[in-house]
């Protein structure tokens, strides 16, 4: 497998995340805006042909709720509304595309409260993936720091850190997160809620990589060049910075490839249970919560969009992880 071919998944991963981030900035609707007259509205069809079958500027037909049936609509193409690109968004900002009022454009339909699924998917993606990425960075930083300390210093420090890590690993992570969440202050704005989720996931997830780091430091500190440096009077932190941390780079990269998707799933699970980032912020997990009712799945398939996006993300992470593995093996 050529190096260029292997790196393609990483490129795709970066492009996918960049698209999500850019899309969130250009979301057609504010994520928390409730269009209460349009619950479970289906994805809007953008039409390119006018009533005479001639080519026309992209437009949408009026959407009329059926009064007798909840969540049922019919299109009234006697009333057509042109689509504007990069138009101003209600509530501020720029929208990727908007139907001229009073038309409505929901690219992936709406949820039970009439919120635009496409906008929430973009905003939720940034949040879910951002949470996984940030939590993984924080957990790896903690793991590198504490694992190195345990391996390098040994004795009491090693015993405390190692036993603490073992206790954390023995506890079921989800229940640990639930307990931690219950103990935290009740009043928290969405940003604080996001940071709390990141910190909780990182705090619960540093133990396993820390044990790996400790093992590597334990073996590295007995190597000749480290012993030589120590003989020349190098202190512990100098050894750590100059000789031991570079040894850890490969392991930390491989762990990142494992931890990011794991933490993304954890955030999605927490939000699915309603314990992640609170409303009005959206996350893929909270968007998927509705799918526990089979009729939503059966009658409103567009609600599956976050599951598709999550699957794609995780697949890309898997490919990227494999590429990293090959990279490390080649170097070794």
């Amino acid at each position: 497998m050529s190096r260029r071919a292997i790196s393609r998944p990483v490129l795709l991963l970066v492009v996918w995340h960049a698209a999500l981030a850019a899309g969130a900035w250009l979301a057609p609707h504010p994520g928390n805006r409730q269009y209460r007259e349009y619950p479970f509205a289906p994805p809007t069809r953008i039409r390119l042909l006018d009533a005479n079958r001639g080519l026309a500027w992209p437009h949408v037909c009026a959407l009329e709720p059926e009064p007798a049936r909840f969540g049922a609509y019919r299109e009234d193409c006697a009333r057509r509304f042109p689509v504007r690109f990069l138009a101003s968004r209600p509530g501020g900002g720029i929208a990727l595309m908007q139907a001229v009022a009073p038309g409505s454009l929901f690219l992936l339909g709406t949820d039970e409260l009439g919120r635009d699924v496409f906008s929430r998917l973009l905003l939720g993606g940034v949040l879910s993936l951002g949470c996984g990425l940030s939590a993984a960075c924080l957990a790896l930083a903690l793991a590198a720091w504490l694992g190195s300390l345990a391996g390098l210093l040994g004795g009491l420090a090693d015993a405390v850190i190692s036993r603490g890590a073992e206790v954390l690993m023995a506890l079921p992570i989800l229940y640990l997160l639930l307990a931690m969440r219950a103990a935290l202050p009740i009043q928290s704005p969405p940003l604080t809620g996001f940071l709390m989720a990141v910190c909780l996931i990182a705090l619960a997830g540093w133990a396993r990589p820390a044990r790996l780091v400790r093992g590597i430091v334990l073996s590295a500190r007995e190597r000749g060049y480290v012993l030589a440096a120590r003989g020349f009077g190098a202190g512990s932190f100098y050894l750590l910075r100059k000789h031991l941390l570079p040894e850890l780079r490969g392991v930390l990269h491989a762990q990142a490839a494992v931890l990011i998707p794991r933490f993304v799933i954890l955030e999605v699970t927490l939000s699915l249970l309603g314990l992640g980032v609170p409303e009005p912020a959206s996350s893929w997990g909270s968007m998927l919560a509705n799918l526990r009712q089979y009729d939503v799945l059966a009658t409103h398939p567009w609600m599956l969009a976050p599951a598709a996006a999550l699957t794609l993300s995780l697949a890309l992470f898997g490919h990227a992880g494999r590429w990293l593995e090959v990279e490390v093996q080649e170097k070794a």
Partner: protein
Amino acid sequence: MHRRIGKVAPSFRARRVTGCLLLWSACLSFASESESLVVRTTPGKSGGDLVIALRAEPKTLLPLSAVDASSKELLSLLHSDLIHIHRPSQQTAAALAREWQLSADGLRYTLRLRRGLRFSDGHPLTAEDVAFTFRVLLDEQVKAPGRDLLRIRGRFPAVRTLGRETVEVTLPAPYAPAERLFDSIAILPRHRLEAAYREGKLLQSWALNTSPEEIVGAGPFRLCEYVPGRRIVVERNPFYWKRDSNGTALPYLDKVTILFLPDQEAELFRFRAGETHLHGRLTARGFAALESLPASRRPALADLGPGLEQHLLFFNQNDAAAKGLAALEAKQAWLQDVRFRRAVSLAIDRTGIARLVFQGKASPLAHHVSPGNRLWHTAIEGLPKYAPDEATRALQAMGLRWKADRWFDATGAPVAFSIAVNAANGEQRQMAAMIQEDLREIGIDVSVVPLEFRSLIDRVMQTLDYEAAILGLRDGDVDPVPQMPMLLSTGRMHFWRPNQQNAATPWEAEIDRLMELQAAERDLRRRAAHYAEVQRIVAAELPFLALVSPHVLTGAHPDLGNVQPSVLAPYLLDGLDAVFWRRSGRTR
């Protein structure tokens, strides 16, 4: 060989015929000497099996220790009470007690049992069994969970027998809904349980692994089979005390199989597939899904309107200073102001909640008594009301200041609060999201805090560390008295400020007075007037904001007759003794 068989066979046949005749004559004599209750439902046909589902496996088969809904629902099929609340009419009706009288001072109930009552093992049911039931229920040593339900002004009733078929129940004080107390008190067989009671092991009796023959009751069915984790099968009780107008003994059904389906979706799937025949707890979505089925496959669906369940939003009214909750104390200047609560109430689109969260299968509420409570609900004109402009004016009148699209209080702090909500309850989370949006429209920032249920209850009842919360309440009965733990200021369920020594506000004191009055009042009209006044006070002072009451939605197999759904639990199971298959040969 043939000759031998020929000799034996007539003798065997003769024994069988004799046996049948004896059983028939025993049944006839039982029928002639018994005073069966004749039901007024459509006469049906005997035979057939039914399959229903419970959300969880029952915890016990002993009525004394049943506290979970599944155990109670199962035991309602196996046992009978003296006076029963007829669920569809919400009124009391004679059950094992044929008639009863109340003394002039309102303290003594004299109940006469039906003649010829028998338990499901054929043993006679007499006044001694009734006295035994009350003795064990009220015995402090037994620690029966239902004991406290019989406490009237801190004391318990006394029960004595007056002959074989008469019992006298003496109340410690006049108690308006006393008749309703008898509902769901299963009369226990003394001959089966007295030994365990004497040994002090009563609550350990009748566990799930007890042999089915040991479980004896006076209900329409008796236990037949229990397969742990999968099902319970009950069969027709031949000694049941009800008949139809044609003289046919009830129940009509031969067997009822009860499956354990903890998952709401699995329960709906099985019902939709015709694998279960009754569904008493359909969600609005499940109801809509079943409604959309073709007519040939569609079950008989019933929307009974608002039930006794309701969702409430309330603000923390506790003494925050005493608890050292400084952040809450600063906000209580306006959280404790009824004008603020009124403004929030005006800003909430309850009709929108009913339409979006419950797909229109819920009714907006003005106070804590749902319109589903046909006996006690008082409609208050003009309420509930959705008027965001009026809400804005009310906030202005409070002296709050409007700046940069938000309200600020006298200290310059923004008017913002959090709503704690049960994370596992999707409907309440959606309600919170809608309220958040409604209040944002009038310039109040709300953050929604989903919490695990136990931690939410802990905050509301113990630590008191919350600002506002949404909870769902479900009343077991329509009578006002069971509401007292919530409405009395001393009540432990007075969730916005529980366990007060003295009422903190004049209107809470007035509610206390009216509730005590109605509980002792025997005149129904005066009682109703007292309770209507309580409802008016609640609607005016808004200690909690009643949001919506979901409709009770039920479904039944279209071939079933006499299905009587009701808004009172157990919704469909209560009238199961009269349910029958319209088409014969319906066995499963």
